[in-house]
């Protein structure tokens, strides 16, 4: 190990040299180093995630206690947003609090989805982890196009700022749902939707630049010996994800341009002939098609689901292999399944549109492809489960998050089947069942995997561990409250509760039918669940406090890593100095083996790094017996 020590010194000296050259702004803000950009993405995205979650916490108040003054932040909302959070008066005419108007509820709902998906999870799962980990794992000095990488982050920030500013313009932010269906999205008088569209164009540009960079990096900058079947699964997942972003996002960009034309140039791409608005025929040329928007939106929207889940699966794979100390079971099956998902995800989009009346033949086609795409997903999950078999598992924080990812993603996936069949979907469409289904995929699914990734790669980025104890507190409380939030939503949804009701369904509260004693409307039990869900949501927020404190406290105070490879992992990112200097590797690594060679029989450690040369086979001196 002597020479690596020297190399490290050497690299360190280089690094300090670089410190003198680069000022604070060049090093941390306008950096072209993939690791810094990854961390920039991570922190920005985590802030957006918390912001998007906060919007939902406020909405949960309105759902649980419709029309009652918002506690703690009511007056703040009123000061910031004015009449969107109007005062609630008592009988004497005194202000007793501030409530959430229906318009504000709609805006928060639309922006919760937009922020969580486009500004939270995609940047964190794809851009942050991908940027930080992928070049390290393939043995590259940086991304192929470092300046385009920086431009990608800057576009992302601009898009995010435009989205945030839209809350404060007259009329407020976009309020037509994160799917922005026309004509609703087009006809509103507010400019919120225009801001949303322009913000989306920036976010799409950002992800396009990122996707080109990722694919080019993985194709061009693999270290010598890093052939395709030696890539860590995480790299494969990011590779397919990048293709999804590259090819699925442009149609949404086209759709955004067309909706922008509808709003600004008064075209009628998505507005049908004879459209009636406020009891008057709208003064438009007509001839457009609202279905066209939905097709273009979901052509992105469904691959987007896999953009959310594939990087998460990649992280889970890395962590499971590392903590079971076993090779991943079925590496090739994982790779081929991921590729299959990538292809199939482009031909399932219209299963979001069974209720639009697009025709039974089309529904049948998309129902079939939807059932087919569940097969590779199940293969991936099965490979992970079998990988656990017979391992002596290390139950550290990243592993706990990954282990819970498996059943949580399983629940999310299996509850998707009734939504993929068009007959059962007609009943469940737009109910809380749908909300529960996809949140199981992205919240205790993807977000748990992202937490695992943060706990797992934190020592590489900072040289210190996050606290195990507080990590476990964070894990167990999050797991508990996530389930308390989303399980009841299945129940509500199957009872028929619509997902977009401003008062949580109170308008439809059941009353006993005097004639027969049968309850007409939604039975009270399902409405009471709203309170429980809301309390669990707020408790989930409290459960994130240990994480937030742990995250920042550990930068300076966490336990120092005992080596460059504290988890005793095999992949290349652990074979660098900690934290890796600009340029990553002191010398170009040579790759000799696959990514998960744990517990190789006859080897003196239970892990064999990818860049460890094959030992020369012992020479056979005795002739073999005939």
């Amino acid at each position, binding site marked *: 190990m002597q020479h690596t020590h020297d190399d490290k010194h050497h690299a360190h000296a280089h690094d300090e040299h670089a410190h003198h050259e680069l000022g604070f702004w060049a090093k941390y803000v306008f950096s072209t180093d993939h690791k810094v950009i990854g961390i920039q993405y991570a922190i920005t995205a985590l802030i957006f995630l918390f912001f998007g979650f906060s919007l939902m916490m406020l909405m949960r108040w309105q759902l649980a206690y419709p029309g009652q003054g918002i506690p703690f932040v009511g007056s703040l909302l009123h000061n910031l947003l004015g009449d969107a959070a109007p005062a609630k008066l008592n009988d004497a005419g005194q202000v007793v609090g501030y409530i959430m108007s229906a318009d504000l509820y709609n805006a928060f709902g639309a922006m919760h989805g937009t922020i969580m998906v486009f500004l939270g999870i995609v940047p964190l799962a794809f851009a942050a982890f991908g940027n930080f980990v992928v070049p390290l794992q393939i043995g590259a000095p940086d991304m192929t196009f470092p300046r385009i990488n920086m431009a990608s982050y800057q576009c992302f920030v601009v898009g995010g700022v435009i989205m945030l500013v839209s809350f404060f313009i007259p009329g407020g932010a976009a309020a037509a749902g994160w799917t922005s269906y026309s004509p609703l999205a087009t006809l509103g008088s507010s400019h919120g939707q225009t801001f949303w569209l322009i913000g989306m164009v920036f976010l799409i540009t950002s992800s396009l630049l990122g996707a080109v*960079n990722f694919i080019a990096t993985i194709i*061009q900058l693999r270290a010598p010996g890093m052939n395709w079947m030696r890539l860590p699964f995480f790299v494969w997942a990011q590779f397919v994800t990048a293709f999804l972003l*590259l090819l699925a996002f*442009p149609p949404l960009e086209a759709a955004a*341009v067309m909706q922008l034309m509808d709003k600004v140039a008064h075209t009628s791409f998505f507005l049908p002939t004879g459209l009636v608005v406020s009891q008057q025929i709208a003064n438009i040329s007509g001839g*457009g*098609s609202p279905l066209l928007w939905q*097709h273009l939106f979901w052509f992105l929207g469904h691959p987007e689901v896999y953009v959310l889940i594939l990087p998460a699966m990649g992280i889970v794979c890395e962590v499971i292999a590392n903590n079971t100390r076993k090779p991943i079971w079925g590496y090739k099956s994982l790779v081929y399944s991921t590729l299959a998902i990538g292809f199939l995800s482009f031909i399932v989009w219209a299963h979001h549109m069974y209720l639009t009346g697009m025709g039974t033949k089309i529904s049948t086609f998309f129902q079939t492809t939807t059932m087919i795409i569940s097969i590779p997903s199940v293969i991936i999950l099965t490979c992970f489960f079998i990988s656990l078999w017979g391992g002596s598992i290390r139950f550290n924080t990243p592993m706990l998050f990954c282990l819970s990812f498996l059943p949580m993603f399983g629940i999310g996936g299996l509850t998707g089947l009734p939504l993929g069949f068009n007959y059962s979907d007609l009943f469940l469409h737009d109910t809380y069942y749908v909300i529960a289904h996809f949140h199981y995929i992205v919240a205790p699914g993807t977000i748990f995997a992202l937490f695992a990734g943060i706990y797992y790669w934190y020592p590489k980025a900072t040289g210190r561990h996050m606290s195990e104890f507080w990590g476990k507190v964070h894990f167990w409380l999050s797991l508990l409250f996530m389930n308390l939030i989303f399980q009841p939503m299945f129940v509500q949804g199957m009872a028929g509760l619509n997902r977009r009701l401003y008062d949580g369904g109170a308008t439809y509260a059941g009353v006993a039918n005097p004639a027969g004693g049968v309850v007409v409307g939604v039975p009270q039990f399902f409405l009471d669940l709203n309170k429980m869900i809301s309390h669990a949501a707020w408790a989930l927020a409290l459960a994130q406090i240990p994480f937030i404190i742990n995250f920042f406290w550990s930068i300076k105070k966490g336990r120092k890593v005992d080596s460059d490879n504290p988890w005793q992992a095999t992949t290349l990112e652990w074979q660098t100095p900690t934290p890796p200097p600009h340029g990553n590797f002191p010398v170009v690594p040579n790759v000799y083996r696959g990514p998960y060679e744990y517990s190789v029989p006859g080897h003196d450690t239970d892990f064999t790094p990818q860049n460890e040369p094959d030992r020369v086979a012992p020479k056979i001196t005795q002739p073999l017996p005939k």
Partner: protein
Amino acid sequence: MEIPYTVKPRPDTGLYNAKVGIWLFLASEVMLFGALFSSYILLRVGAAAGTWPHGLLNVNLGTINTIVLITSSITVVMAWVSLKLNQWGKFKMYQAVTLLCALAFLGIKSAEYKDKFTHFQIIKKDGTYVDGHMHGAAYLDKDGKSLEVHKYHGLTFKENGSEYSLKEVTLNGIGAEELGQINEPKHGEHHEHKNISVPAAEIKKIENYGPWHSTYLAIYFTLTGLHALHVIGGALVIFVLWARGGKMWRTDPERYTNRIEISGLFWHFVDLVWIFLFPVLYLL
């Protein structure tokens, strides 16, 4: 560690980095324009009878523009070849022709745009149509003083403190009973264009042929506008490389040649989009 393969190709892929990058970028561009072409198909298939115009655009101008762009595609290749043959002067000349072609294309395109913005359609209160280019409009101010202009200023407009309202519009074109007569003229039938004056009192709706007029014009302006933006972007890159490339050509000729190749690939893509746009919008 330096980033490898920025200039020399990687042996197993045979490509240098930027070439991978531009092909990936073009793939996403294909999806962008693909979505718009798909929208065109969907809108056209769903259009009510008589509302989809045929023969609205000037095929001659479109043909000239097609030839102009194809010429520029040839010169952009010749420019790259010149660099490969180490002929700097020829490169400068070919790329100058490319840039002139780009300007010619944009000039013709803007003339076509202007033609659409001065083309008006009037729906009269009796349900019939008058359709043609703006010949002139007469306005009255409050005192009954009339003002004749060659541009349409809207139903009312203000100038020098006095307010004018529309008295009459004269279009140079045709009258029609229904939209189909305007949008789908029968073969061999030629309507004589003449000046038709319509008093303001008879006008139900007057509108020029901007993107708001119909879904055809909406997709026409969106597609060609987006394409024109690509032409402008590509021409700008080519221009900057052309005007300021001398230094890199002397110090790092291979890298400079690669850049010309990359910008050329983008330029070919822009041409290719037009090769699809021309028949779809002008001929079909």
